[in-house]
C-alpha cells in the first residue's frame, strides 16, 4: 500500500517560495514570447503589371505602412514592371477581356485600342487627382516598405538589376516570400 497522499507535504516537494519563483519565471518567459514581435506585418505578392492591377498592391502597402505595419511586396512575373523605373511609367490597360469596357472585344482587339484605353484611364487618374504609380512607389519606399524583385523572373524577362528603382531588393526568391508570408499577419496575392 502506498504511503503517498497528494496533500501530504514531503521533503522533496518544492516549497512555496520555489513555486512562486517558478511562476515568476514562466510569466516572464510568456511575456517575452508574446511581446517579442508585436509589430504587425503584411506580405503582398504582386504578379500583375497592367495599369489597373498595379494600384492595389501599392495602395495597400502605403496604407499599411501608415498603420505602422512592416510591409514586404514581392514582385514576380509582370508585377516586376511596377518596380521597373522605365516600364512603370508606361503601364498599359488592356481593352480586351474586360466586359466592363465600352467596346466589344472584337473592336477592342484592333491595333491601337490598348493605347487608347490606357490614355483614357491616365486622363481619369489625372482628373481625379489619383496618385500615379510612380508617386505611390516613391511614397511607399519613403515609408519603409520593402519592395522585392523576384530574381528568377528578372532573369526570365531579361531585366537588369539597375533597371529598378533605388531601394528595390533583388536577389530574392520564393523561399524569401514564403518566409515573409509565414511571419505576416496579412498575406495577399495580387
Amino acid at each position, binding site marked *: 500500500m502506498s504511503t503517498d497522499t497528494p496533500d501530504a507535504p514531503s521533503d522533496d516537494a518544492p516549497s512555496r517560495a520555489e513555486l512562486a519563483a517558478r511562476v515568476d519565471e514562466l510569466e516572464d518567459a510568456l511575456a517575452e514570447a508574446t511581446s517579442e514581435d508585436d509589430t504587425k506585418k503584411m506580405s503582398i505578392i504582386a504578379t500583375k503589371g497592367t495599369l489597373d492591377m498595379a494600384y492595389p498592391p501599392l495602395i495597400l502597402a502605403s496604407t499599411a505602412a*501608415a498603420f505602422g505595419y512592416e510591409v514586404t511586396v514581392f514582385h514576380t512575373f509582370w508585377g516586376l514592371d511596377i518596380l521597373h523605373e522605365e516600364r512603370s511609367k508606361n503601364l498599359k490597360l488592356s481593352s480586351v477581356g474586360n466586359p466592363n469596357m465600352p467596346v466589344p472585344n472584337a473592336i477592342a482587339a484592333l491595333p491601337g485600342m490598348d493605347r487608347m484605353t490606357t490614355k483614357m484611364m491616365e486622363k481619369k487618374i489625372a482628373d481625379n487627382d489619383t496618385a500615379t504609380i510612380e508617386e505611390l512607389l516613391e511614397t511607399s519606399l519613403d*515609408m519603409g516598405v520593402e519592395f522585392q524583385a523576384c530574381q528568377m523572373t528578372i532573369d526570365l524577362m531579361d531585366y537588369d538589376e539597375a533597371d529598378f528603382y533605388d531601394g528595390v531588393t533583388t536577389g530574392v526568391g520564393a523561399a524569401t516570400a514564403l518566409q515573409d508570408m509565414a511571419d505576416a499577419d496579412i498575406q495577399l496575392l495580387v
Partner: protein
Amino acid sequence: MNAEFDIAETLDVKGASCPMPVVKTKGAIDDLAVGEVLEVLATDPGSMSDIDGWAAGTEGVELVEQEEGDDVYTHYVRKTE
C-alpha cells in the same frame, strides 16, 4: 480655433484621393510632439471613414474630432505617444 484643443499643425490634402490623405496624415503626425493635435483638411469623402479607421488601428494616435463641411472634411488627430 476649437476651444478644447490647440492645433499645432495643419495639413492640407484637399484634392488628394485615397490613399494619400491617410499616408500624408501619418507623415505629418510623425513630425509632431506627443500631445499635439494635427488638423487635416481633405476633400476626399472617403477620408471620414479612412482616417477614423487608421486612427483606431494605429498605435500612438487618437482621433479627436471630425467635421463634415460643405466641401471640406476636417479631421483632428492627436499624437499620444
